[in-house]
Protein backbone atom coordinates (compact mmCIF):
# COMPACT_ATOMS: atom_id res chain seq x y z
CA UNK A 1 0.00 0.00 0.00
CA UNK A 2 1.28 3.46 -0.86
CA UNK A 3 1.80 5.41 2.31
CA UNK A 4 3.84 8.42 3.35
CA UNK A 5 6.09 6.05 5.25
CA UNK A 6 7.01 4.03 2.16
CA UNK A 7 7.54 7.17 0.09
CA UNK A 8 10.00 8.64 2.58
CA UNK A 9 11.77 5.31 2.85
CA UNK A 10 12.16 5.02 -0.93
CA UNK A 11 13.54 8.53 -1.15
CA UNK A 12 15.98 7.89 1.65
CA UNK A 13 17.20 4.63 0.14
CA UNK A 14 17.64 6.26 -3.24
CA UNK A 15 19.60 9.17 -1.74
CA UNK A 16 21.82 6.79 0.21
CA UNK A 17 22.68 4.78 -2.90
CA UNK A 18 23.63 7.93 -4.82
CA UNK A 19 25.38 10.04 -2.22
CA UNK A 20 27.47 9.73 0.90
CA UNK A 21 25.46 9.74 4.17
CA UNK A 22 26.36 13.35 4.99
CA UNK A 23 25.23 14.71 1.67
CA UNK A 24 22.11 12.56 1.79
CA UNK A 25 21.28 14.02 5.20
CA UNK A 26 21.79 17.56 3.91
CA UNK A 27 19.58 16.87 0.92
CA UNK A 28 16.94 15.42 3.19
CA UNK A 29 17.06 18.56 5.31
CA UNK A 30 16.55 20.68 2.18
CA UNK A 31 13.59 18.52 1.15
CA UNK A 32 12.08 18.80 4.61
CA UNK A 33 12.47 22.59 4.62
CA UNK A 34 10.84 22.86 1.21
CA UNK A 35 8.01 20.60 2.31
CA UNK A 36 7.52 22.61 5.50
CA UNK A 37 7.35 25.88 3.57
CA UNK A 38 4.89 24.37 1.10
CA UNK A 39 2.80 23.08 3.96
CA UNK A 40 2.79 26.54 5.55
CA UNK A 41 1.72 28.24 2.37
CA UNK A 42 -1.02 25.70 1.75
CA UNK A 43 -2.21 25.87 5.35
CA UNK A 44 -2.35 29.64 5.19
CA UNK A 45 -4.50 29.57 2.08
CA UNK A 46 -6.77 26.76 3.23
CA UNK A 47 -7.28 27.89 6.81
CA UNK A 48 -8.04 31.51 5.99
CA UNK A 49 -10.60 30.41 3.43
CA UNK A 50 -12.02 27.87 5.86
CA UNK A 51 -12.28 30.50 8.56
CA UNK A 52 -14.10 32.91 6.29
CA UNK A 53 -16.49 30.23 5.14
CA UNK A 54 -17.18 28.99 8.67
CA UNK A 55 -17.68 32.55 9.87
CA UNK A 56 -20.09 33.22 7.03
CA UNK A 57 -22.13 30.10 7.67
CA UNK A 58 -22.33 30.85 11.39
CA UNK A 59 -23.41 34.42 10.71
CA UNK A 60 -25.98 33.21 8.13
CA UNK A 61 -24.04 34.67 5.23
CA UNK A 62 -22.52 33.11 2.13
CA UNK A 63 -18.92 34.20 2.52
CA UNK A 64 -16.45 34.69 -0.33
CA UNK A 65 -18.01 33.33 -3.54
CA UNK A 66 -16.73 35.43 -6.41
CA UNK A 67 -13.13 34.35 -7.06
CA UNK A 68 -13.24 30.87 -8.54
CA UNK A 69 -15.98 28.30 -7.94
CA UNK A 70 -17.40 28.88 -4.46
CA UNK A 71 -14.67 31.43 -3.81
CA UNK A 72 -11.84 28.91 -3.45
CA UNK A 73 -9.25 31.23 -5.01
CA UNK A 74 -10.14 34.14 -2.76
CA UNK A 75 -7.21 33.68 -0.40
CA UNK A 76 -4.78 33.14 -3.28
CA UNK A 77 -5.91 36.46 -4.73
CA UNK A 78 -5.55 38.12 -1.32
CA UNK A 79 -2.02 36.78 -0.99
CA UNK A 80 -1.09 38.14 -4.41
CA UNK A 81 -2.42 41.51 -3.35
CA UNK A 82 -0.42 41.45 -0.13
CA UNK A 83 2.78 40.52 -1.98
CA UNK A 84 2.41 43.52 -4.25
CA UNK A 85 1.82 45.96 -1.40
CA UNK A 86 4.57 48.08 0.00
CA UNK A 87 6.05 46.84 3.27
CA UNK A 88 6.18 50.13 5.12
CA UNK A 89 8.51 50.74 8.06
CA UNK A 90 7.45 53.72 10.19
CA UNK A 91 10.02 56.52 10.55
CA UNK A 92 10.36 56.43 14.30
CA UNK A 93 10.25 52.65 14.61
CA UNK A 94 13.19 50.57 15.74
CA UNK A 95 13.94 49.39 12.21
CA UNK A 96 15.92 46.27 13.02
CA UNK A 97 13.52 44.82 15.59
CA UNK A 98 10.52 45.93 13.56
CA UNK A 99 11.65 43.93 10.55
CA UNK A 100 12.87 41.01 12.62
CA UNK A 101 9.66 40.44 14.59
CA UNK A 102 7.54 38.77 11.89
CA UNK A 103 10.35 36.34 11.19
CA UNK A 104 10.75 35.46 14.86
CA UNK A 105 7.05 34.64 15.05
CA UNK A 106 7.27 32.59 11.86
CA UNK A 107 10.41 30.78 12.99
CA UNK A 108 8.79 29.72 16.25
CA UNK A 109 5.89 28.29 14.28
CA UNK A 110 8.33 26.41 12.05
CA UNK A 111 10.29 25.01 14.97
CA UNK A 112 7.08 23.64 16.44
CA UNK A 113 6.50 21.60 13.34
CA UNK A 114 9.49 19.36 14.07
CA UNK A 115 8.10 16.85 16.58
CA UNK A 116 4.60 16.51 15.11
CA UNK A 117 3.78 13.07 13.72
CA UNK A 118 1.76 13.62 10.55
CA UNK A 119 1.26 9.96 9.77
CA UNK A 120 2.54 6.58 10.82
CA UNK A 121 6.36 6.88 10.99
CA UNK A 122 6.19 10.24 9.23
CA UNK A 123 7.73 12.75 11.55
CA UNK A 124 10.56 15.21 11.12
CA UNK A 125 12.21 14.66 14.45
CA UNK A 126 11.07 12.09 17.00
CA UNK A 127 12.81 13.78 19.92
CA UNK A 128 12.49 11.94 23.23
CA UNK A 129 11.31 15.07 25.08
CA UNK A 130 8.81 16.02 22.38
CA UNK A 131 6.11 17.37 24.67
CA UNK A 132 8.57 19.41 26.71
CA UNK A 133 10.07 20.77 23.51
CA UNK A 134 6.65 21.85 22.27
CA UNK A 135 5.62 23.59 25.46
CA UNK A 136 8.93 25.42 25.78
CA UNK A 137 9.25 26.52 22.17
CA UNK A 138 5.62 27.58 21.85
CA UNK A 139 6.10 30.14 24.63
CA UNK A 140 8.82 31.83 22.57
CA UNK A 141 6.28 33.34 20.18
CA UNK A 142 5.46 35.95 22.81
CA UNK A 143 8.94 37.38 22.25
CA UNK A 144 8.16 38.03 18.61
CA UNK A 145 4.89 39.71 19.56
CA UNK A 146 6.48 41.88 22.23
CA UNK A 147 9.23 42.78 19.77
CA UNK A 148 6.67 43.86 17.18
CA UNK A 149 4.72 45.89 19.72
CA UNK A 150 7.74 47.62 21.18
CA UNK A 151 9.55 48.32 17.93
CA UNK A 152 6.48 49.82 16.24
CA UNK A 153 6.66 52.85 18.55
CA UNK A 154 2.89 53.05 18.62
CA UNK A 155 0.73 53.03 21.73
CA UNK A 156 -1.78 50.59 20.32
CA UNK A 157 0.93 48.16 19.29
CA UNK A 158 2.58 48.37 22.67
CA UNK A 159 -0.69 47.87 24.57
CA UNK A 160 -1.58 44.92 22.38
CA UNK A 161 1.81 43.36 22.90
CA UNK A 162 1.68 43.81 26.68
CA UNK A 163 -1.76 42.24 26.82
CA UNK A 164 -0.56 39.39 24.70
CA UNK A 165 2.38 38.88 27.01
CA UNK A 166 0.20 38.73 30.11
CA UNK A 167 -2.16 36.39 28.35
CA UNK A 168 0.36 33.93 26.95
CA UNK A 169 2.33 33.75 30.18
CA UNK A 170 -0.84 32.97 32.16
CA UNK A 171 -2.45 30.49 29.83
CA UNK A 172 0.79 28.63 29.22
CA UNK A 173 0.31 27.26 32.73
CA UNK A 174 -3.01 25.56 32.25
CA UNK A 175 -2.04 24.34 28.78
CA UNK A 176 1.04 22.84 30.36
CA UNK A 177 -0.97 21.13 33.09
CA UNK A 178 -3.41 19.73 30.55
CA UNK A 179 -0.51 18.30 28.58
CA UNK A 180 0.98 16.91 31.78
CA UNK A 181 -2.11 14.79 32.44
CA UNK A 182 -1.36 12.83 29.28
CA UNK A 183 2.31 12.60 30.16
CA UNK A 184 1.34 11.17 33.56
CA UNK A 185 -0.91 8.58 31.93
CA UNK A 186 1.58 7.61 29.22
CA UNK A 187 4.73 7.91 31.28
CA UNK A 188 6.64 9.34 28.33
CA UNK A 189 7.41 12.69 26.76
CA UNK A 190 8.01 11.23 23.33
CA UNK A 191 5.30 11.93 20.75
CA UNK A 192 5.61 8.54 19.05
CA UNK A 193 5.19 6.73 22.38
CA UNK A 194 2.20 8.86 23.32
CA UNK A 195 0.57 7.90 20.03
CA UNK A 196 1.52 4.24 20.45
CA UNK A 197 -0.06 4.20 23.91
CA UNK A 198 -3.41 5.02 22.30
CA UNK A 199 -3.46 1.94 20.12
CA UNK A 200 -6.34 0.35 22.03
CA UNK A 201 -8.34 3.57 22.38
CA UNK A 202 -7.74 7.30 22.45
CA UNK A 203 -6.87 8.89 25.77
CA UNK A 204 -10.04 10.93 25.61
CA UNK A 205 -12.01 7.67 26.00
CA UNK A 206 -9.53 5.64 28.00
CA UNK A 207 -8.86 8.34 30.57
CA UNK A 208 -12.56 9.27 30.91
CA UNK A 209 -13.54 12.18 33.22
CA UNK A 210 -10.16 13.71 34.15
CA UNK A 211 -8.88 13.53 30.58
CA UNK A 212 -12.06 15.08 29.27
CA UNK A 213 -11.61 17.93 31.76
CA UNK A 214 -7.98 18.25 30.67
CA UNK A 215 -9.05 18.29 27.03
CA UNK A 216 -11.52 21.11 27.62
CA UNK A 217 -8.89 23.05 29.59
CA UNK A 218 -6.37 22.48 26.81
CA UNK A 219 -8.71 23.78 24.13
CA UNK A 220 -9.51 26.89 26.18
CA UNK A 221 -5.88 27.54 27.01
CA UNK A 222 -4.60 27.16 23.45
CA UNK A 223 -7.36 29.39 22.12
CA UNK A 224 -5.98 32.03 24.46
CA UNK A 225 -2.38 31.25 23.57
CA UNK A 226 -2.97 31.69 19.88
CA UNK A 227 -4.62 35.06 20.61
CA UNK A 228 -7.92 34.12 19.07
CA UNK A 229 -11.37 35.35 19.96
CA UNK A 230 -12.78 35.31 22.62
CA UNK A 231 -9.25 35.96 23.88
CA UNK A 232 -8.07 38.22 21.07
CA UNK A 233 -7.32 41.18 23.33
CA UNK A 234 -3.89 41.51 21.77
CA UNK A 235 -5.41 42.69 18.52
CA UNK A 236 -8.88 43.77 19.67
CA UNK A 237 -9.93 45.73 16.59
CA UNK A 238 -12.47 47.88 18.37
CA UNK A 239 -10.02 49.01 21.05
CA UNK A 240 -6.52 48.79 19.60
CA UNK A 241 -6.97 49.15 15.82
CA UNK A 242 -5.07 45.91 15.18
CA UNK A 243 -2.97 45.50 18.31
CA UNK A 244 0.62 44.52 17.89
CA UNK A 245 0.56 44.43 14.09
CA UNK A 246 -1.05 47.86 13.61
CA UNK A 247 2.02 49.27 11.86
CA UNK A 248 2.71 46.29 9.65
CA UNK A 249 1.70 46.15 6.03
CA UNK A 250 2.25 44.03 2.96
CA UNK A 251 4.14 40.80 3.33
CA UNK A 252 5.27 41.53 6.89
CA UNK A 253 1.64 41.70 7.94
CA UNK A 254 0.97 38.55 5.95
CA UNK A 255 3.65 36.74 7.93
CA UNK A 256 1.91 37.60 11.21
CA UNK A 257 -1.39 36.58 9.75
CA UNK A 258 0.07 33.34 8.47
CA UNK A 259 1.79 32.64 11.78
CA UNK A 260 -1.54 32.96 13.57
CA UNK A 261 -3.07 30.27 11.40
CA UNK A 262 0.00 28.04 11.50
CA UNK A 263 -0.07 28.28 15.28
CA UNK A 264 -3.71 27.24 15.32
CA UNK A 265 -2.87 24.27 13.14
CA UNK A 266 0.03 23.30 15.39
CA UNK A 267 -1.83 23.52 18.68
CA UNK A 268 -4.71 21.57 17.18
CA UNK A 269 -2.29 18.96 15.84
CA UNK A 270 -0.77 18.63 19.29
CA UNK A 271 -4.21 18.41 20.88
CA UNK A 272 -5.17 15.73 18.38
CA UNK A 273 -1.96 13.84 19.10
CA UNK A 274 -2.30 13.94 22.86
CA UNK A 275 -6.02 13.43 23.32
CA UNK A 276 -7.34 11.96 20.09
CA UNK A 277 -4.56 9.54 19.23
CA UNK A 278 -2.73 11.49 16.53
CA UNK A 279 -2.55 9.35 13.39
CA UNK A 280 -3.91 6.31 15.28
CA UNK A 281 -7.18 5.06 13.73
CA UNK A 282 -10.22 4.72 15.94
CA UNK A 283 -9.68 1.47 17.83
CA UNK A 284 -12.13 0.09 20.33
CA UNK A 285 -10.73 -2.38 22.83
CA UNK A 286 -10.94 -5.92 21.44
CA UNK A 287 -13.25 -5.47 18.47
CA UNK A 288 -10.66 -6.97 16.13
CA UNK A 289 -12.67 -6.76 12.90
CA UNK A 290 -13.81 -3.19 13.57
CA UNK A 291 -10.24 -2.13 14.31
CA UNK A 292 -9.10 -3.83 11.14
CA UNK A 293 -11.56 -1.91 8.97
CA UNK A 294 -10.49 1.34 10.58
CA UNK A 295 -6.86 0.54 9.76
CA UNK A 296 -7.66 0.72 6.05
CA UNK A 297 -8.17 4.47 6.28
CA UNK A 298 -4.66 5.94 5.88
CA UNK A 299 -3.09 7.34 9.02
CA UNK A 300 -2.45 10.74 7.44
CA UNK A 301 -6.17 11.13 6.83
CA UNK A 302 -6.91 10.26 10.44
CA UNK A 303 -4.42 12.85 11.62
CA UNK A 304 -5.65 15.60 9.32
CA UNK A 305 -9.28 14.80 10.08
CA UNK A 306 -8.79 15.11 13.82
CA UNK A 307 -6.70 18.25 13.49
CA UNK A 308 -9.21 19.94 11.24
CA UNK A 309 -12.02 18.94 13.56
CA UNK A 310 -10.27 20.73 16.43
CA UNK A 311 -9.55 23.72 14.19
CA UNK A 312 -13.24 23.86 13.37
CA UNK A 313 -14.11 23.83 17.09
CA UNK A 314 -11.75 26.74 17.71
CA UNK A 315 -13.27 28.65 14.80
CA UNK A 316 -16.70 27.88 16.19
CA UNK A 317 -15.59 29.50 19.48
CA UNK A 318 -14.36 32.55 17.68
CA UNK A 319 -17.62 33.27 15.93
CA UNK A 320 -19.80 32.51 18.94
CA UNK A 321 -18.28 34.15 21.98
CA UNK A 322 -17.79 37.85 22.73
CA UNK A 323 -14.35 39.14 23.66
CA UNK A 324 -13.32 39.15 27.33
CA UNK A 325 -12.02 42.14 29.26
CA UNK A 326 -8.42 41.98 30.48
CA UNK A 327 -9.38 41.45 34.13
CA UNK A 328 -11.95 38.82 33.16
CA UNK A 329 -9.30 37.09 31.11
CA UNK A 330 -6.86 36.89 34.00
CA UNK A 331 -9.64 35.97 36.45
CA UNK A 332 -10.63 33.08 34.24
CA UNK A 333 -7.09 31.76 34.19
CA UNK A 334 -5.97 32.30 37.77
CA UNK A 335 -9.27 31.71 39.58
CA UNK A 336 -10.79 28.98 37.46
CA UNK A 337 -8.57 27.22 34.96
CA UNK A 338 -5.45 26.98 37.07
CA UNK A 339 -7.03 25.57 40.27
CA UNK A 340 -9.13 23.18 38.23
CA UNK A 341 -6.13 21.94 36.27
CA UNK A 342 -4.07 21.51 39.45
CA UNK A 343 -6.83 19.48 41.03
CA UNK A 344 -7.33 17.57 37.82
CA UNK A 345 -3.65 16.68 37.63
CA UNK A 346 -3.86 15.28 41.15
CA UNK A 347 -6.88 13.22 40.14
CA UNK A 348 -5.10 11.88 37.07
CA UNK A 349 -2.07 10.94 39.12
CA UNK A 350 -4.26 8.96 41.51
CA UNK A 351 -5.99 7.28 38.60
CA UNK A 352 -2.70 6.46 36.92
CA UNK A 353 -1.24 4.99 40.10
CA UNK A 354 -4.31 2.91 40.86
CA UNK A 355 -4.65 1.87 37.22
CA UNK A 356 -8.27 3.07 37.02
CA UNK A 357 -8.13 3.88 33.33
CA UNK A 358 -9.00 1.46 30.58
Amino acid at each position, binding site marked *: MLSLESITKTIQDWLLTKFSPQIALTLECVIVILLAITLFAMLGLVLVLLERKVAAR*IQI*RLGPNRVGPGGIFQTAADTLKLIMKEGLTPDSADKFLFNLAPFVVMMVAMLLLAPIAFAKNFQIWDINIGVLYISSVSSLSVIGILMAGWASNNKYSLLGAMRSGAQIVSYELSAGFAVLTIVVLTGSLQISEIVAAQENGWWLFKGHIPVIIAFVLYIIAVTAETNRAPFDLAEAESELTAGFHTEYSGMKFALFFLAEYINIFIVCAIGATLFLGGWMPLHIGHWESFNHIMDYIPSSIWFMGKTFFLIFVIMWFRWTFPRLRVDQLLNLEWKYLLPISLFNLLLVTVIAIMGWYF
Partner: protein
Amino acid sequence: MFLKDYISDVVNGVSSLLKGMRKTGYYFTHSKEIITEQYPDNRATLKLADRFKGEVVMPHDENNEHTCTGCTACELACPNGTIKIITKFDITPEGKKKKAIDAFIYRLEMCTLCNLCVAACPSDAIKMAPNFEHSVFDRSKLTKILNKPGSKIKEGIE
Protein backbone atom coordinates in the same frame (compact mmCIF):
# COMPACT_ATOMS: atom_id res chain seq x y z
CA MET B 1 -20.51 27.43 50.77
CA PHE B 2 -17.64 28.97 48.84
CA LEU B 3 -17.01 25.72 47.03
CA LYS B 4 -20.69 25.40 46.15
CA ASP B 5 -20.77 28.90 44.65
CA TYR B 6 -17.57 28.20 42.78
CA ILE B 7 -18.86 25.00 41.24
CA SER B 8 -22.23 26.50 40.32
CA ASP B 9 -20.35 29.43 38.72
CA VAL B 10 -18.38 27.05 36.55
CA VAL B 11 -21.44 24.98 35.64
CA ASN B 12 -23.51 28.08 34.79
CA GLY B 13 -20.70 29.54 32.74
CA VAL B 14 -20.11 26.38 30.76
CA SER B 15 -23.79 25.75 30.14
CA SER B 16 -24.43 29.30 28.90
CA LEU B 17 -21.45 29.04 26.57
CA LEU B 18 -22.77 25.73 25.26
CA LYS B 19 -26.14 27.32 24.65
CA GLY B 20 -24.47 29.92 22.46
CA MET B 21 -22.54 27.27 20.60
CA ARG B 22 -25.72 25.31 19.99
CA LYS B 23 -27.29 28.32 18.33
CA THR B 24 -24.32 29.03 16.08
CA GLY B 25 -23.90 25.33 15.39
CA TYR B 26 -27.51 25.25 14.26
CA TYR B 27 -26.89 28.12 11.86
CA PHE B 28 -23.76 26.43 10.58
CA THR B 29 -25.57 23.23 9.70
CA HIS B 30 -28.73 24.79 8.28
CA SER B 31 -27.98 26.52 5.00
CA LYS B 32 -31.62 27.44 4.51
CA GLU B 33 -31.17 30.12 7.17
CA ILE B 34 -28.73 32.07 4.97
CA ILE B 35 -30.14 35.52 4.27
CA THR B 36 -27.54 36.86 1.83
CA GLU B 37 -29.11 38.37 -1.30
CA GLN B 38 -26.83 38.05 -4.30
CA TYR B 39 -27.71 41.42 -5.80
CA PRO B 40 -27.50 42.22 -8.72
CA ASP B 41 -27.57 38.57 -9.88
CA ASN B 42 -31.01 38.07 -8.38
CA ARG B 43 -32.39 41.50 -9.18
CA ALA B 44 -35.66 39.99 -10.35
CA THR B 45 -36.28 37.90 -7.25
CA LEU B 46 -34.77 40.23 -4.68
CA LYS B 47 -36.48 39.96 -1.29
CA LEU B 48 -36.09 42.94 1.02
CA ALA B 49 -37.10 43.12 4.64
CA ASP B 50 -40.43 44.84 5.35
CA ARG B 51 -38.73 47.46 7.46
CA PHE B 52 -36.30 48.42 4.69
CA LYS B 53 -36.32 52.18 4.18
CA GLY B 54 -35.35 53.42 0.72
CA GLU B 55 -37.33 56.60 0.09
CA VAL B 56 -40.48 58.42 1.17
CA VAL B 57 -43.50 57.88 -1.08
CA MET B 58 -47.12 58.95 -0.96
CA PRO B 59 -49.50 56.12 -1.80
CA HIS B 60 -52.38 56.92 -4.10
CA ASP B 61 -55.44 54.75 -4.53
CA GLU B 62 -57.15 53.77 -7.80
CA ASN B 63 -59.10 57.08 -8.01
CA ASN B 64 -55.80 58.98 -7.83
CA GLU B 65 -56.61 60.08 -4.31
CA HIS B 66 -54.20 60.43 -1.38
CA THR B 67 -54.80 61.24 2.28
CA CYS B 68 -52.46 64.19 2.74
CA THR B 69 -54.25 67.20 4.25
CA GLY B 70 -51.37 69.59 3.86
CA CYS B 71 -50.96 70.05 7.60
CA THR B 72 -47.15 70.38 7.22
CA ALA B 73 -46.48 68.25 10.30
CA CYS B 74 -43.97 66.26 8.27
CA GLU B 75 -42.23 69.40 7.12
CA LEU B 76 -41.82 70.51 10.72
CA ALA B 77 -40.68 67.08 11.83
CA CYS B 78 -37.97 66.74 9.24
CA PRO B 79 -34.60 67.55 10.84
CA ASN B 80 -32.91 68.66 7.64
CA GLY B 81 -35.52 70.44 5.57
CA THR B 82 -36.06 67.71 3.04
CA ILE B 83 -39.78 68.33 2.69
CA LYS B 84 -41.50 71.43 1.47
CA ILE B 85 -45.29 71.53 1.39
CA ILE B 86 -46.93 74.07 -0.86
CA THR B 87 -50.60 74.49 -0.02
CA LYS B 88 -53.50 75.97 -1.93
CA PHE B 89 -57.14 76.53 -1.13
CA ASP B 90 -59.81 74.48 -2.83
CA ILE B 91 -63.40 75.71 -2.99
CA THR B 92 -65.78 73.04 -1.78
CA PRO B 93 -69.25 72.61 -3.42
CA GLU B 94 -70.76 74.45 -0.44
CA GLY B 95 -68.61 77.42 -1.34
CA LYS B 96 -66.24 77.06 1.63
CA LYS B 97 -62.47 77.31 1.33
CA LYS B 98 -60.53 74.20 2.18
CA LYS B 99 -56.79 73.80 2.58
CA ALA B 100 -55.14 71.22 0.33
CA ILE B 101 -51.68 70.49 -0.98
CA ASP B 102 -50.47 71.90 -4.22
CA ALA B 103 -47.12 70.18 -4.21
CA PHE B 104 -45.36 67.87 -1.79
CA ILE B 105 -41.72 68.53 -2.61
CA TYR B 106 -39.35 65.87 -1.45
CA ARG B 107 -35.57 66.19 -1.93
CA LEU B 108 -34.25 62.68 -1.87
CA GLU B 109 -30.62 63.80 -1.93
CA MET B 110 -31.06 65.46 1.46
CA CYS B 111 -33.13 62.76 3.11
CA THR B 112 -31.44 60.65 5.78
CA LEU B 113 -34.30 58.11 5.78
CA CYS B 114 -34.85 58.70 9.47
CA ASN B 115 -38.60 57.96 9.28
CA LEU B 116 -39.53 60.97 11.46
CA CYS B 117 -41.85 62.44 8.83
CA VAL B 118 -43.74 59.16 8.46
CA ALA B 119 -44.14 58.94 12.23
CA ALA B 120 -45.32 62.56 12.44
CA CYS B 121 -48.02 62.32 9.78
CA PRO B 122 -51.43 62.28 11.48
CA SER B 123 -53.27 60.83 8.49
CA ASP B 124 -50.77 58.17 7.33
CA ALA B 125 -50.38 59.86 3.98
CA ILE B 126 -46.71 58.98 3.46
CA LYS B 127 -44.68 55.85 4.00
CA MET B 128 -41.28 54.36 3.33
CA ALA B 129 -40.75 52.36 0.13
CA PRO B 130 -38.01 49.75 -0.38
CA ASN B 131 -36.54 51.30 -3.56
CA PHE B 132 -32.82 51.77 -3.36
CA GLU B 133 -31.56 52.15 -6.93
CA HIS B 134 -31.55 55.92 -6.76
CA SER B 135 -28.51 56.84 -8.82
CA VAL B 136 -29.17 59.37 -11.59
CA PHE B 137 -26.94 61.52 -13.78
CA ASP B 138 -28.71 64.75 -12.96
CA ARG B 139 -29.13 65.83 -9.39
CA SER B 140 -32.35 67.68 -10.06
CA LYS B 141 -34.00 64.31 -10.80
CA LEU B 142 -33.78 63.62 -7.09
CA THR B 143 -36.18 66.41 -6.24
CA LYS B 144 -39.56 64.79 -6.51
CA ILE B 145 -43.15 65.89 -6.21
CA LEU B 146 -44.89 63.15 -4.35
CA ASN B 147 -48.52 63.97 -5.03
CA LYS B 148 -49.37 62.81 -8.53
CA PRO B 149 -50.64 65.36 -11.03
CA GLY B 150 -54.39 65.78 -10.83
CA SER B 151 -54.64 63.91 -7.55
CA LYS B 152 -56.91 65.11 -4.82
CA ILE B 153 -57.56 64.34 -1.21
CA LYS B 154 -59.75 61.40 -0.35
CA GLU B 155 -63.34 62.13 0.81
CA GLY B 156 -63.74 62.42 4.55
CA ILE B 157 -60.15 63.12 5.50
CA GLU B 158 -59.86 66.31 7.54
